[in-house]
């Protein structure tokens, strides 16, 4: 079965430190990969995506993500966390041929001052 896993329900990091939010997937073919962020009482906002090419993708608000085909992972990263980055982060994977979207269960990021 197709699935997206975010193994950490919560990630805690101090402001100014680097952060990583993990995502692995089991989706056939060479899917497209996305990260979204959700602030309280808001809809999801697009952060970045991997379609093809360079394995390191840069996105909004200083976030980047690293695609690893052999490990079927797409981890979200930021070199220096801000308190305002505290939110819920979702990894999403889309099949190229069948157009289906699969979301992970989300990771709550807490950045402490």
């Amino acid at each position, binding site marked *: 079965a197709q699935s997206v896993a975010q193994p950490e329900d919560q990630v805690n990091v101090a402001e100014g430190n680097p952060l990583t939010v993990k995502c692995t997937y089991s989706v056939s073919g060479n899917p497209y990969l996305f990260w979204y962020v959700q602030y309280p009482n*808001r809809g999801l906002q*697009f952060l970045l995506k991997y*379609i093809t090419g360079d394995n390191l993708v840069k996105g909004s608000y200083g976030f980047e993500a690293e695609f690893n085909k052999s490990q079927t992972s797409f981890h979200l990263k930021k070199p220096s966390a801000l308190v305002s980055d505290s939110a819920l982060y979702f990894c999403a994977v889309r099949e190229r041929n069948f157009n289906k*979207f699969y979301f992970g269960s989300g990771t709550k990021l807490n950045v402490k001052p």
Partner: protein
Amino acid sequence: EAGVAQSPRYKIIEKRQSVAFWCNPISGHATLYWYQQILGQGPKLLIQFQNNGVVDDSQLPKDRFSAERLKGVDSTLKIQPAKLEDSAVYLCASSSEGAIYEQYFGPGTRLTVT
């Protein structure tokens, strides 16, 4: 550019009642999605439209949920009759046609069934 609009933002109903949600996608977006997000979980796709045709409704509980997208623009999602387990946030999203395009989400409608 205006975003995805949804209404109402909040709705409280009793079980066995009916409810309808409305969504207006970003202008020009051919693809429209309805998701159900239960607290603590990721969004679950209920139905996907391409223009006014249904692409995927495999996870839509068709005995109580229905959706339509008239003229390929606005969409409504209806629940009749509602159950307690339908309490969730219902998200509408739209995107340009094509799998490479990201989705843009509306603010959601928080439904509470009592």
